[in-house]
């Protein structure tokens, strides 16, 4: 870790406190000139592609999940070369401490962090509470777009296996814990998209057999910060039934909301093996002959699937 880790009581209870920073910490770091030498880079990643332009944390650069992190042709993430170009253009070097924040309780910021992790970027952290908390606290915003000195980023081959699950992996995983982070309406199959969002072309509604329903936003408090460790344990251990050492797969619609849950399970509760199934319901709900359960019950793995 190249930049000092924040110490506070809430974070200390988490398995990996070094993965979060608070708004106070970031404001003090920026005031102290942390952004001047490329050791620390602040990245904003939002759902709304124009939000950064309306005002952002002074000195922050923008990474757009749709145009920067996704491959334009294949449904996949960018390759090592494209990622190296992106990082360097944003002033990020391989040893830079990257702090990511965004709108909607860091929903997309967590997704960007997960993609950085696919490339093995060592020190990447989330701003607890994200954009909304920074603004709610009346902290400074700027519309000035920085032009950072280019970073020095090697071409690193993406290593998907440890944190990313594909459909075949999920089929092989059936019988082990799955967390469905979508809304209850999507889980039961009443609808195939988020409430108040358009239907998005999944042919079947429901959930992957045995998946526990823990909508992603339940891991966030009203101010957009992650809930405390005891609260997260009540959610994922008591309610979802996970136990220490479990191998877990989380999914949603396209893998963005489940990145937020992936972060909580991996870094806040310390599960070693947590994978995000980014194909999620837009793949599973359209795939031929995969098992699906409708309704509020988790259901069982059908005989003959494994």
């Amino acid at each position, binding site marked *: 870790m190249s930049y000092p880790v924040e110490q506070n009581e809430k974070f200390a209870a988490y398995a990996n406190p070094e993965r979060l920073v608070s708004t106070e910490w970031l404001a003090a770091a920026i005031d102290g000139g942390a952004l001047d030498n490329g050791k620390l880079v602040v990245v904003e990643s939002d*759902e*709304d*592609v*124009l*939000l950064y*332009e*309306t005002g952002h944390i002074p000195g922050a650069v923008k990474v757009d999940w*749709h*145009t920067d992190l996704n491959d*334009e042709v294949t449904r996949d993430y960018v390759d090592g070369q494209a990622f190296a170009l992106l990082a360097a253009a944003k002033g990020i070097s391989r040893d830079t401490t990257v702090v990511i924040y965004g*709108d909607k309780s860091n929903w997309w910021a967590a997704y960007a962090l997960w993609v950085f992790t696919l490339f093995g970027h060592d020190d990447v952290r989330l701003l607890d509470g994200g954009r909304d908390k920074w603004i709610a606290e009346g902290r400074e915003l700027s519309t000035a777009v920085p032009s950072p000195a280019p970073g020095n980023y090697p071409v690193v081959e993406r290593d998907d296996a440890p944190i990313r699950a594909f459909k075949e992996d999920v089929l092989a995983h059936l019988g082990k814990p799955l967390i469905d982070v979508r809304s209850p309406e999507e889980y039961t199959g009443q609808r195939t998209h988020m409430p*108040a*969002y*358009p239907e*998005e072309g999944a042919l079947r509604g429901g959930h992957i057999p045995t998946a526990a329903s823990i909508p992603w936003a339940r891991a966030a408090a009203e101010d957009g910060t992650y809930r405390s460790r005891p609260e997260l344990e009540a959610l994922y251990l008591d309610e979802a039934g996970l136990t220490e050492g479990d191998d877990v797969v989380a999914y949603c619609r396209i893998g963005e909301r489940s990145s937020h849950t992936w972060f909580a399970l991996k870094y806040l509760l310390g599960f070693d093996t947590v994978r995000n199934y980014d194909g999620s319901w837009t793949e599973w709900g359209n795939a031929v002959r995969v098992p699906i359960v409708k309704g509020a019950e988790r259901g069982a793995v059908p005989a003959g699937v494994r």
Partner: protein
Amino acid sequence: MRKLEAMSTYALPTALAEIVDDFQALSEPERLQLLLEFSLGLPELPERLRDHPELLEQVVECQSPLFLTIETEKNDGGSPAFRLFFKAPREAPTTRGFAGVLHEGLDGLTAEEILAVPDDMPELLGLTRAITPLRMRGMTAMLGRIKRKVAASARLSS
């Protein structure tokens, strides 16, 4: 992506056609900047609507809360003019931006002019690469809702 030439712009009202031309003339980052300017330029609701949210309808297909309504205004001799009113939060600049485009492009026009706008007009703005398909569909839904409301109102008064 669809070829722009394949879609005719002949049915676009003058103001909307000018907006489309402005977008087309720009590079992609500049188009986003222009959309941001439209989001800043979206007029506030008049007071009589501000205090009556029940008079506006939500377009649920938009990713951010977007409410709209229409009113008719008598025109000297001609068909009535339709006035458009939108409400969208500042934290949703993309949604607001498109509302701003529709406001500047369609406000004050007749039913005939508004109903002639092609349903896939949002694609003419050249934003389909920069903006996710989900959002593009929200924009299309916003236009669709306006056209449905205008058509219903025009039927009632004819």
